[in-house]
């Protein structure tokens, strides 16, 4: 909402700020105009960490930007304000939350939500309200035409799975695989894609149906059957960070000798606390946080993250990119894109920036044409990690395209 009065005022303030900034260095807090970005996701209940990590990432990065004097778009600096709403994984609350962000706060760019159900429910709001969002849900329907307002924020399991399986097939001689999923839509869909990928690679799929219920505290019944099949690899499809360590520990206690992997991000602290040594050798997809690949900028970021959240969470390594790419794409598209997402969309095919979170200086851009027939995914690097004595080590870094 750029009103003329506030425009003039902010221009004046910007002028003063410029002078002051020159005088005092970067310590000055300029009263920039605000650019609001929404975070909509589950921030309470069993899956609270998914949405909270999104929110903390956005807030941490926004704090950095604002303290550095704001984010420049079209020669003007904006302070980034994060407006976050907890949808509790309830589609009704997701819809009202999205309507609030879009219509009341005038927000055009939303990070989230976290599951297929809520992501699909707000599609009508996003499209009608002329907004873009970055869901962390994997359903291809969200990103494929005729849909065009949603951008997948991370690596989908159906992208990481084949890469990991292939690696393990070639490097570790894996021949047989067993899948287990949480008995919820998102996990089941991820497992289905994973099974298809494994079969395409010629792996022997020993178990393709096993599930467990949310809230399971005892994985012996579930894992006994899987371990009994003696697969070379057990894939935990779309398991929540809280469940993975229990499953690892249980499998080892049941005498499982083979490999275990997952396609989603996990947290090293939880793994070492709950599973301890049993988690060694566990392969998961991480973000930019392992020491081998992270840049200095990433280290600064994770310190800021700790200030906001109290504690680092490795899930955050996969979620740092959303705000960064949103802002930089808007910047490239010009100030009009702040209000008009069609300008943003027009820019998506060509947009490219250096990924500031990684040492190797690879590009951050939009990908996914091979999966969705259009570029509707952030080129999050596919960092495949292996857990070793309380830390993640990077096995290799792949990419979607």
């Amino acid at each position, binding site marked *: 909402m750029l009103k003329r009065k506030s425009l003039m005022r902010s221009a004046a303030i910007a002028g003063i700020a410029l002078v002051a900034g020159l005088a005092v260095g970067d310590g000055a807090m300029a009263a920039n105009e605000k650019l609001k970005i929404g975070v909509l996701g589950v921030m309470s209940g069993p899956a609270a960490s998914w949405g909270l990590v999104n929110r903390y990432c956005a807030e941490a990065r926004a704090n950095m930007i604002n303290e550095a004097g704001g984010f420049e778009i079209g020669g003007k600096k904006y302070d980034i304000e994060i407006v976050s709403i907890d949808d509790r*994984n309830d589609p009704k609350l997701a819809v009202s939350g999205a309507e609030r962000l879009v219509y009341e706060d005038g927000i055009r760019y939303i990070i989230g939500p976290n599951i297929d159900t809520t992501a699909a429910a707000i599609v009508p709001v996003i499209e009608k309200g002329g907004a873009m969002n970055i869901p962390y849900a994997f359903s291809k329907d969200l990103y494929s035409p005729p849909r065009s307002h949603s951008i997948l924020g991370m690596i989908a399991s159906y992208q990481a799975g084949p890469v990991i399986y292939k690696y393990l097939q070639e490097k570790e001689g894996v021949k047989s695989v067993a899948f287990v999923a949480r008995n919820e839509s998102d996990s089941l869909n991820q497992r289905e894609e994973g099974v298809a990928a494994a079969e395409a690679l010629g792996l022997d799929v020993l178990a393709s149906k096993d599930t467990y219920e949310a809230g399971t505290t005892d994985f012996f019944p579930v894992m006994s059957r899987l371990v009994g099949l003696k697969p070379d690899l057990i894939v935990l499809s779309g398991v929540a960070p809280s469940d993975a360590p229990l499953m690892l520990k249980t499998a080892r206690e049941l005498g499982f000798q083979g490999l275990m992997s997952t396609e989603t991000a996990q947290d090293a602290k939880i793994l070492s606390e709950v599973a301890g040594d049993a988690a060694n050798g566990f392969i998961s997809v991480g973000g930019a946080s392992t020491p081998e690949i992270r840049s200095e900028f990433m280290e600064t970021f994770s310190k800021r993250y700790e200030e906001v959240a109290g504690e680092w969470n490795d899930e955050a390594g996969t979620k740092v990119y959303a705000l960064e790419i949103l802002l930089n794409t808007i910047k490239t598209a010009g100030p009009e894109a702040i209000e008009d997402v069609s300008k943003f969309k027009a820019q998506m095919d060509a947009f490219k920036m250096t990924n500031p979170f990684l040492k190797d200086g690879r590009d951050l851009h939009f990908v996914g044409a091979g999966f969705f027939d259009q570029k509707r995914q952030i080129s999050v690097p596919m960092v495949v990690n292996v857990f070793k004595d309380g830390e993640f080590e990077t096995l290799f870094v792949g990419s979607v395209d």
Partner: protein
Amino acid sequence: MPNQRSLIAVGVALVIYLIVLPALLADKPYFLGVLTTASVLSVIAAGVWLTFFIGRINIGQGAFALVGGYAAAILMTKLGFSFWIAMPLAGLTAALVSIVIGIPILRLRGVYFAMISLSLTETARLSAQSFRSVTEGAKGIVNIPLPGAVEIFGFTLIPDFSTVDKHLAFYFLAAILLIATFAAMYRLVNSRIGWLFKSLQQNEELASSVGVDIARLRVIAYAISSFLGGIGGAFFVAAQQSVYPASFQIQDSIYFMLYTFLGGLGYVFGPIVGTFVLFLSFEFLHGLNEYQPLIYSIIMIALMLWLPNGLLSIRLPGWGLGTKANPERARGA
């Protein structure tokens, strides 16, 4: 029997609800959306209220909303039905399912019924996931069309929702559902059926001793309740244009119960008050972030401590004294 004053009050409320609010909020889709959602949630909660009215603690309404949602989605996407036919059929499907389930479980009372009803929501979710050939399983049913036009002899009775202001259209649909539901509920409760339901709530043995077919009546009440759940489910599926196994969850079922309680179990319009107060306060407390559920729960407990018989009991002075003459509480076991 309604007296003149309450008729005027209802009239004023209707004018505000149907004319003033939509006029004021026409360009505020968010507020319109919140009111729309609250309206339909009240309709679903009205069903819960009715099961309370026959003396059953119902924490399973989400299951029937899910059944209704899926019924509507399947009818619209796979069989090509119009929304306007699919919605009542969704209600009927939910009612039918509730009859099959209700015949055995309505024999349970007290916390036993409460506990089994709580597991119904999970049962519904797991069924939606398991019977893939009909429900698409975990993938959900997406890209459901918006409600289309209804025309009679070339005269457009209801416009196609995609051609008009969708938010207003859904608001009016929700408003009509709410008004129709509560008018029917009011009539039901004040008719002989209401008295029979009330007799069930107070003593089933006694009711059957004077010839009331208690088994049939409680199934009827449950079917009406589930019908409303199914209608509500169909509405949300149409508004969100998608349905997933997790579209209605245990949390929803618990909230429907809370809405009903909060308004007051002794009042037909309790569900409206309870739902609007809880849902709106929930929306407006959202700026508190993680403290929101905490504050929300404190408010809820406080309300129960000071107004244990619901918000609507405020208007009855001296009510607290009357309740003390009621030392016995029928216990479940």
